[in-house]
């Protein structure tokens, strides 16, 4: 530790810190543009100048100057102020005075710091330089004349996102930040460029000229478009959600957000179900809530409880799933399923289906085996964490499954189960790598579980984990990577076929007479039996609603208070930012109201009572935002026989990252991303 005095305040900071960090520790704010604590130090904006005693009498860039024991730093001397004013004057020489038409206005570092260090007029009488705007794809809008060359975007894309596509070409006054060749950024994290740009050079294209930051109501919530559960802030105005930004959660998303989670918000306004619909004479017709309830009740009255089933969707909150489960139990049905993809899950023990190492725990691992997953598409933020660990070195990674560019180096050691068998049998060199490692980890993707031999693959991977030292009382290296935000919560509360109950496959094709879909759109609705009566409860008119006989309009994730459990098993609360449109209601309230209508009133009248019930069903729901990490003392594995794994290769799980759920499919921005990034269709043979 080094003792540093900043403006008379003594602080101790770790050796190797820079002066800027010491100033932060002392609570002294240092203006900066290029410095970002998650990126490498560039030291090129020169805004963070400070004066240090017993050094040459000149200002030092605090971000690039290491601390030394006994250092005395002054941040508010005449020299420092004059130097910063000088830097600001230089920065403003070529920066346009277009704040009134700039989307960064109101949340612009340059604007804020110009208040402190700018002058009221410019001494610069020459022509300002103008720079041609770059086309970075459908998400990031560029106004390159505003760029102050801090190079944060270049460092972010190279270091964090792992796609070296942005750079600074030419030099001096001709220097331009861009891709040199016109192309859309091929990163799932490109939206973060908008956040890290300290000026208005990179702004959100879909959000251009939509709102000013001070007009927005800010609601802290949690993202549900993948299973990572990133912390988000939902910005809304009136009844509209206008944008989604990341919040800092060091354990999950640090301060980043994936593009689908950030830019799908325009899907919240389109294809919405805003009233009840009932199918009459083969066509869906608008109906009132009593009419819709009556239609369902009429049908239910003449159906045996064992002939009705319920399917929970990928975006469902735990409250509504529990209400649905309680309702169906009361109606005498055990036909429940949350696995629209048919992925195998052993809910016998929680660590059979969660990401036990935890996302932050990846940084402590020293070897990684990925089985049947493409973390870059399935969980971009988790992938960024793997890359962060990989960059530190000493992190051998192997992949079994479809080859892909994951933004870090790995050995592609196989395509399918036979490689797992080879690892188990010690016939594969990587098993030695894992044995030697002290804290190895394994990530098992849905692509390896959603197949007939999923149970056997799960058991084989667990055995492999046990055999290679991934399971110890101090360390848990076995991880299942989910892609559906609702999945772990559903497994936690047992939204699975009960005793004698039917799974999704058995409910389809006439297995039940009434099928209740809670936002379930990710399965082949054509496989539902022709005579099955389908109730669709959800927010968007997607394939589930198209097949429905009765539609009950529900709320999207920004319109309800809900509990979500991410792939780690972290319980988090999403919050209501705006009210659901039209007649739509929060989902658990719909179910509670319907239960009263059919005379099976659910025993909770408000969300507090429902959450109390949730805790009684599974105590994990009481641990909100807290994720205790356990080692694995009991290495007894899930049911399954590794010997029965079939030879077929693991298929890629997500083909199109940008459209995986009803919200992103309704989003024009995501549609545009799909158009830009989709691989060119194969040319038909002539």
């Amino acid at each position, binding site marked *: 530790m080094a003792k540093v005095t900043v403006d008379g305040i003594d602080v101790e900071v770790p050796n190797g810190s820079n002066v800027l960090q010491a100033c932060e520790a002392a609570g002294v704010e240092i203006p900066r543009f290029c410095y970002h604590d998650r990126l490498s130090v560039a030291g090129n904006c020169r805004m963070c100048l400070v004066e240090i005693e017993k050094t040459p009498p000149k200002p030092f860039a605090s971000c690039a100057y290491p601390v030394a024991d006994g250092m005395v730093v002054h941040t508010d001397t005449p020299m420092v102020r004059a130097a910063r004013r000088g830097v600001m004057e230089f920065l403003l020489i070529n920066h346009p005075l277009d704040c009134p038409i700039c989307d960064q206005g109101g949340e612009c570092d340059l604007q804020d710091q110009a208040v402190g260090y700018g002058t009221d007029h410019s001494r610069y009488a020459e022509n300002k330089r103008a720079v041609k705007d770059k086309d970075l794809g459908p998400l990031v809008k560029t106004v390159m004349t505003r760029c102050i060359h801090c190079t944060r975007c270049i460092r972010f894309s190279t270091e964090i996102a792992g796609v070296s596509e942005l750079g600074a070409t030419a*030099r001096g006054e001709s220097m331009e930040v861009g891709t040199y060749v016109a192309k859309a950024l091929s990163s799932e994290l490109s939206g973060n460029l908008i956040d890290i740009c300290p000026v208005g050079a990179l702004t959100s294209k879909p959000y251009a000229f939509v709102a000013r930051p001070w007009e927005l109501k800010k609601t802290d919530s949690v993202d549900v478009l993948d299973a990572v559960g990133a912390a988000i802030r939902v910005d809304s105005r009136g009844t509209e959600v206008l944008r989604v930004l990341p919040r800092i959660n060091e354990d999950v998303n640090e301060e980043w957000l994936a593009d689908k989670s950030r830019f799908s918000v325009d899907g919240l306004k389109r294809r919405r179900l805003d009233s009840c619909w009932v199918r009459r004479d083969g066509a869906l017709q608008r109906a009132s809530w009593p009419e819709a309830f009556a239609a369902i009740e009429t049908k239910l009255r003449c159906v045996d409880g064992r002939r009705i089933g319920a399917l929970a969707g990928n975006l469902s909150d735990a409250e509504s799933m529990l209400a649905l489960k309680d309702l169906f139990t009361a109606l005498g049905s055990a036909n429940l399923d949350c696995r629209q993809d048919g992925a195998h899950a052993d809910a016998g023990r929680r660590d059979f289906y969660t990401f036990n190492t935890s996302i932050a725990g990846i940084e402590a691992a020293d070897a990684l085996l990925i089985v049947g997953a493409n973390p870059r598409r399935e969980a971009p933020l988790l992938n960024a964490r793997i890359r962060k660990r990989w960059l530190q070195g000493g992190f051998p990674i192997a992949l079994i499954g479809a080859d892909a560019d994951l933004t870090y180096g790995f050995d592609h050691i196989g395509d399918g189960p036979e490689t797992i068998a080879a690892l188990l049998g010690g016939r594969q060199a990587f098993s030695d790598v894992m044995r030697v490692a002290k804290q190895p980890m394994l990530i098992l993707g849905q692509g390896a579980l959603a197949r007939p031999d999923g149970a056997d693959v799960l058991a084989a991977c667990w055995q492999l984990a046990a055999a290679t030292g991934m399971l110890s009382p101090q360390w848990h290296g076995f991880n299942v990577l989910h892609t559906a935000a609702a999945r772990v919560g559903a497994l936690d509360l047992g939204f699975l076929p009960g005793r004698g109950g039917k799974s999704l496959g058995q409910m389809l094709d006439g297995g039940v007479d009434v099928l209740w879909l809670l936002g379930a759109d990710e399965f082949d609705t054509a496989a539902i039996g022709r005579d099955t009566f389908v109730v669709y409860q959800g927010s968007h008119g997607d394939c589930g609603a198209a097949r429905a006989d009765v539609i009950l309009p529900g709320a999207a994730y920004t319109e309800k208070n809900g509990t979500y459990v991410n792939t780690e098993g972290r319980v988090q609360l999403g919050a209501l930012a705006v009210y659901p449109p039209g007649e739509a209601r929060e989902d658990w309230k719909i179910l509670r109201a319907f239960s009263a209508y059919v005379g099976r009133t659910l025993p909770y009248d408000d969300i507090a009572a429902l959450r109390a019930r949730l805790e009684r069903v599974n105590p994990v729901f009481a641990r909100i935002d807290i994720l205790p990490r356990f080692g694995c003392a009991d290495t007894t594995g899930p049911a399954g026989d590794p010997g029965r794994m079939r030879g077929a290769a693991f298929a890629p799980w997500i083909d199109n990252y940008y459209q995986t759920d009803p919200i992103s499919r309704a989003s024009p921005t995501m549609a545009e991303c799909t158009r830009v990034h989709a691989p060119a269709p194969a040319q038909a043979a002539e």
Partner: protein
Amino acid sequence: MAVGTEGTAHAPEPDSFSFDAASEATIARILAKYPAGKQASAVLPLLDLVQRQMARVTGSGWVPRVAMDAVAHRLDMAPIRVYEVATFYLMFNTAPVGKYNLQVCTTTPCWLRGSDAVAHACRRATGITDWKETSADGMFTMTEVECLGACVNAPILQVNDDFYEDMDAESTERLLAALKRGEHPEPGSVKGRQTSAPEGGPTTLTSLSFEKAE
């Protein structure tokens, strides 16, 4: 736009680029200088090699983007990292140039010694009106460069790799006429002095003898 007689002055971006056999031999020699995993250090010599191969093959020494991609591929670098280097150094031409790249130094010492006259003579002789332009016959491109580091012999006109020193309007015109005829005048001072020694032989310390003392 007029296409030069050499057919190279306004050449479009080629579809592809690959190193020829002569370049490949040089690449092997260059790469051997760097330890394994540090090949990216060879980006400057390889870009230079590209420019020389282009000059040899097409008569126009420039670095097309496809060639930058080829260098990136060869050195296992992201293409943008090569673009950054190639565009940073003004010695790499990112657009086609004429057979002779007339690099006129206009930094203060050369300017004081008459670089304006040199530039003017170049314009008059080639018909070029502005910097970065190529003459209609595809023979010459004029480039304004910063200090070439030969101020003692100012002003300097660098033609491709060769320095022509102590230039003035007349010697510039003579030089360009010779180049047009396909001749290759001896580089160095046009006034005939040895490197940067005084004109007409030594002017100081003339009494000193360098004979061995008895």
